[in-house]
């Protein structure tokens, strides 16, 4: 079949990116919007746009009936869910199937299975994909659990088999003291879950987060598009991603790629997906462990597109239309280095609180090796209802050094005014010595947040410019100081050619 019309069940930068891909592929795009987004960039970019409900996500972008109705009303052949919202909801994929609409993603039962920690772990073990070593010992006596800990290898986490949330969890580093830790864990587990059965798991200390991009067609062919290093995270939220990973050796990369392909086959996957691994140690001997599979396009997919030279969304369209992937693994190569910085409306000096407001001034940088994926233009508002991601800046260079320098140079000339952003924080990260040396692990930002937070020094040039902003206002369209609403943000924008 061919896709003629695709409904984009998302908003913001990813919707804009998907709509652009539709246009390039000669596919008509249908945007959907909530009342908060009626004038948003994705709505303005699409061939058609359909209102799906009020601002609240539950009544709009998360409403399966509203989205299915919009797809049916516009006679769309397919739905692309983007990331977030309904992208990993099996129920949505099922509703699309039932309505005779192609869901651009894996089959519903695959989403379900890979979304379950236990089921996906079992599936991976069966496919010989390494998982974090752990088990529920049959002998639950103190010595039985300690024996399991020794067999798995210290350090271990001893935790309640029945539940999570850190209840009844103890870190055990050596035999000494193991018994008392096990007894304490058992008591807490029994108190919290009514079941003192213990599970013992290897603790992966300060791991790196490395994920492998995979692509599978509906004819059983699977390839991987190498790794993305996503260790720079703040409270489990990725901030900067890059490819290649600065620390993978060629042999480790090859083994992880093979494991990811095996995992994808075992999952009977279709489309673009990501296998996330925790990596422990360095060099060829480093260990890697399956963490989870993301059954969708990732926020950070552009870094893979840059180094692999492949448009992942276009590949998704091809797979959804039933085509065969045109590549064998040997055809695929990583070239150069790409890095993505996520620009959020948040306040780094104030607990990273999300910010809302109007983009009074917003000028994207451009130039060789730069890509900016954004859902906004100058004058648009960042609203309170949705994710505070403003844009993603992707820099490409021949080397890691060149890509990082290019990203930093671009961020210094990416003025965003009207909402606070994390740009200064991103610049501190890009200049950080440990990051530059490629040695950051997943806890690095949280452990060094003090030194990474922007300082309050004030350059005199900023003071001069602030004064000029005042002056140009007074001599602008608003006449005199006593105008009724002289400082309305809208008046600031008039005459700027929007």
């Amino acid at each position: 079949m061919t896709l003629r019309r695709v409904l984009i069940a998302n908003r913001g930068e990813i919707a804009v990116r998907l709509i652009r891909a539709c246009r390039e592929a000669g596919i008509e795009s249908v945007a959907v919007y909530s009342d908060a987004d009626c004038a948003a960039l994705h709505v303005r970019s699409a061939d058609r746009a359909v209102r799906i409900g009020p601002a609240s996500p539950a009544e709009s972008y998360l409403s399966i009936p509203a989205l299915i109705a919009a797809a049916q009303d516009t006679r769309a052949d397919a739905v692309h869910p983007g990331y977030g919202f309904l992208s990993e909801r099996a129920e949505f994929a099922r509703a699309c199937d039932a309505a005779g609409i192609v869901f651009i993603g894996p089959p519903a039962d695959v989403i379900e299975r890979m979304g379950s920690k236990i089921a996906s772990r079992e599936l991976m073990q069966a496919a010989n994909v390494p998982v974090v070593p752990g088990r529920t010992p049959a002998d639950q006596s103190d010595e039985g659990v300690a024996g399991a800990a020794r067999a798995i290898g210290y350090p271990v986490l001893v935790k309640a088999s029945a539940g999570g949330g850190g209840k009844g969890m103890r870190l055990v580093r050596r035999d000494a003291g193991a018994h008392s830790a096990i007894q304490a864990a058992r008591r807490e587990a029994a108190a919290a879950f009514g079941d003192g059965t213990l599970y013992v798991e290897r603790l992966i200390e300060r791991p790196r987060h490395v994920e492998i991009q995979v692509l599978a067609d509906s004819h059983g062919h699977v390839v991987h598009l190498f790794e993305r290093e996503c260790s720079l995270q703040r409270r489990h939220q990725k901030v900067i991603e890059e490819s290649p990973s600065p620390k993978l050796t060629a042999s480790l990369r090859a083994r992880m790629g093979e494991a990811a392909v095996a995992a994808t086959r075992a999952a009977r996957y279709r489309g673009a997906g990501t296998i996330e691994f925790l990596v422990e140690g360095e060099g060829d001997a480093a260990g890697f462990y399956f963490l989870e599979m993301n059954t969708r396009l990732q926020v950070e997919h552009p870094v893979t597109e840059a180094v692999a030279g492949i448009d992942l969304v276009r590949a998704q369209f091809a797979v959804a239309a039933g085509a065969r992937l045109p590549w064998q693994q040997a055809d695929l190569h990583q070239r150069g280095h790409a890095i993505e910085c996520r620009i959020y409306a948040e306040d780094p000096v104030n607990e990273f609180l999300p910010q809302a407001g109007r983009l009074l001034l917003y000028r994207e940088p451009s130039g060789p090796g730069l890509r900016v994926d954004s859902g906004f233009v100058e004058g648009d508002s960042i609203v309170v209802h949705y994710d505070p991601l403003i844009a993603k800046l992707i820099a490409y260079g021949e080397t890691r050094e060149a890509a990082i320098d290019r990203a930093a140079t671009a961020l210094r000339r990416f003025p965003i005014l009207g909402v606070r952003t994390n740009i200064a924080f991103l610049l501190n990260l890009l200049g950080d010595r440990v990051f530059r040396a490629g040695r950051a692990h997943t806890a690095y930002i949280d452990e060094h947040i003090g030194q990474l937070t922007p300082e309050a020094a004030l350059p005199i040039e900023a003071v001069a410019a602030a004064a000029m902003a005042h002056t140009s206002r007074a001599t602008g369209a608003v006449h005199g100081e006593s105008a009724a609403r002289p400082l309305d943000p809208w008046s600031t924008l008039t005459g700027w050619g929007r």
Partner: protein
Amino acid sequence: MTDRTVTLRYGDREHTVSISGDGRVRVDDWERSVAAIGAGEFRIEGAPATLVWAVATGSTRWVFLDGRSYEFEVPRERAGRSRSRSHQGSLTAPMPATVRSVNVSAGARVERGDTLIILEAMKMELPVKSGSAGTVRAVHCREGDLVQPGAELIEIDETADAENQ
């Protein structure tokens, strides 16, 4: 040419800037030519020259320079200016928000620091506090309203002695 003087507050400090008609800008003993080269875009002469972006909204001046952004406040002006302007900073909505509660009505006496209105945005409460003692002249919002940034929420008639802060 006549100098024009602008006072800006950044954190706890106030800065006084003089601007002459020919585009010379002076801050203390620092002086440069500053040219507006585009909407909100300025070039400060020097070796090297500096590119900087700046825009005004409400009593706030936003500046972007070398990857950092700065927010200045223009301190409210002395007696003789219109009342509603003098409180623009504290009594307008800082971001799109829902009005969670309105604690005062027209005619009420308020003290500096009193919480007049509570807004809610991004699941956080934002108290709107009075910048001075005075009397509520008018309330422009109701509980449940969705307000946009810069929207005037409340007007206060100041008592005379609040002028010298």
